[in-house]
């Protein structure tokens, strides 16, 4: 294959005495849907945060499309086409659902100045409406995002990650709290998006059914190290992974 869309080399991060991520390296190829699993506290979220500029890693290097992005700010990474969601609910509580979704796209339209003098919705109204309808949140369009149920907020969160038409999306537990039927839908959506746009996904999830059916390759992290890597079938039958994570 050609250059990987994301390459992580030797990322390490400690908090006080705790080695959360212990020199992790891996590559993600264009168009791949990669799963990232591992026990609680194994460093998955920390790894995401190091890759995406929310945390500064103690060591290591991250490249996106061959470009070194270590130390780059999250907003700049986002402008390079990297989207993400957070494990914790992360909407703008006192803004309407519609405004949440429009905001997620607006910084990719026009320049700073044109956004001051252009239209208030930055021309994203139709796109945002469609996105809201897709996640069956139409009736909540003008509701403040903070007063949505847990699952609804999770969906708004997911909707936001797609607004900017990213080429690489890192999702931290997108399935948590989402109704199974909507989740099946979300999965279809990811697959379709991936097929249509070639968008690459890296997904952290504890819902094995979701991960195993969605991802083509899975990396398993434990105590900050990669302990296994392979296809869903390989992972499912890997004894180390079963012991550390999947359980009997």
């Amino acid at each position, binding site marked *: 294959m050609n250059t990987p869309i994301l390459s992580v080399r030797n990322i390490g991060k400690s908090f006080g005495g705790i080695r959360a991520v212990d020199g992790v390296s891996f590559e993600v190829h264009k168009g791949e849907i990669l799963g990232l699993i591992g026990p609680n506290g194994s460093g998955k979220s920390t790894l995401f945060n190091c890759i995406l500029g*929310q945390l500064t890693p103690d060591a290591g290097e991250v490249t996106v499309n061959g470009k070194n992005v270590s130390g780059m*700010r999250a907003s700049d990474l986002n402008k390079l086409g990297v989207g993400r969601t*957070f494990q914790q609910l992360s909407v*703008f509580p006192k803004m309407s659902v519609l405004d949440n979704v429009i*905001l997620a796209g607006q910084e*990719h339209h026009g320049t700073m100045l044109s956004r001051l003098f252009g239209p208030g919705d930055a021309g994203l109204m139709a796109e945002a409406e469609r996105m809201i309808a897709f996640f069956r949140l139409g009736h909540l369009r003008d509701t403040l995002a903070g007063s949505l149920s847990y699952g609804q907020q999770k969906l708004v969160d997911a909707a936001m990650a797609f607004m900017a038409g990213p080429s690489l999306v890192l999702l931290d537990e997108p399935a948590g709290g989402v109704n199974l039927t909507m989740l099946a839908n979300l999965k279809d959506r990811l697959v379709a998006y991936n097929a249509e746009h070639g968008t690459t996904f890296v997904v952290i999830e504890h819902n094995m059914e979701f991960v195993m059916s969605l991802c083509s390759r899975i990396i398993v992290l434990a105590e900050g190290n990669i302990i296994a890597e392979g296809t869903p079938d390989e992972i499912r039958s890997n004894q180390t992974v079963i012991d550390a994570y999947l359980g009997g």
Partner: protein
Amino acid sequence: MTKSSNIRILIILGLLVLAVVAPIGQKNYIIYVLTSWLIFTIAAMGLNLTLGYAGQISLAQASFMAIGAYITALLTLAGWHWIVAMPLALFACFVIGLLLGYPALRVKGHFLAFVTLAFNTLVFLVLRNEDWLTGGSIGLVGMPRPDFGLFSTMKQLPFYYFTLAVTAFAALAMWGIVRSPWGRAFKALRENPVRAESLGVDTRRITLLAFAIGSTYGGLAGTLITPLVQFIEPGSFALAHSLRILLMVIVGGAGYFFGPWVGAGVVILLPEVLRFTQGYYLIIYSALVIVMLIFVPSGLIGVGARIRDKIWPKQQVRADLAEGASLK
């Protein structure tokens, strides 16, 4: 949607007409008070952007009034016209506002409040101690009011109209800002800066801009205070005045466009109304503010809606009920 915005436009036009006729036939003092209401509205509008929309606490708004006022004073005393001095003052405030925004990149909440508070006091000290430039505690006196050929603002009433025009213009610009994607970005910064950053919002730039624009409005208020009072001294821009502007924003309703108008009105006019109670008016005033915050903590701008809810209590049903159940 459009119906309510039509009503809003009507209300705005009505208020504008009211603002135009209000001072006619009034004594100088009333006009003076109305003028200061407009000027403080501008200052509060700026703080409302920084605090109400962008969520960055600033206790330094009065110091930007000071910077605007002193630059205007020094330049107009040197014979420059207000119209030339004003943009220079605004520019200075914009740049200094940017600088003040830098700490906000590192700290939030009450920490930020104190950095800005410190800034306010430092400005005060400089104004008072550097008397070769600022006249020290004696201040500067005798600044002319602007004269626009056919329209001279020397008299109280023309000066009021002049201020009204500037205020209207400033309000219009603010309206444009908060309705643009910038407004949404400011709010996103307030609500969840980490998420905003991950969505491509350059929170650094937006934070600095929130301070810079807010401060520029403070500066604009300052450039009007100078010709209004025709005397400035450091004490008029001390910390207490920043707190007063903050009070205006909160009492009016932080994050609401019309909040500052109401807030400045209450903070400036209420003491006037209470003046008859002699020595007790500050007591009554502060007690009223406390009561107001207990009963309408989100500001007076929300009072109308609350009263409406009391008179016509309206239970809303959940919106998805209309779509009907899928499991019958």
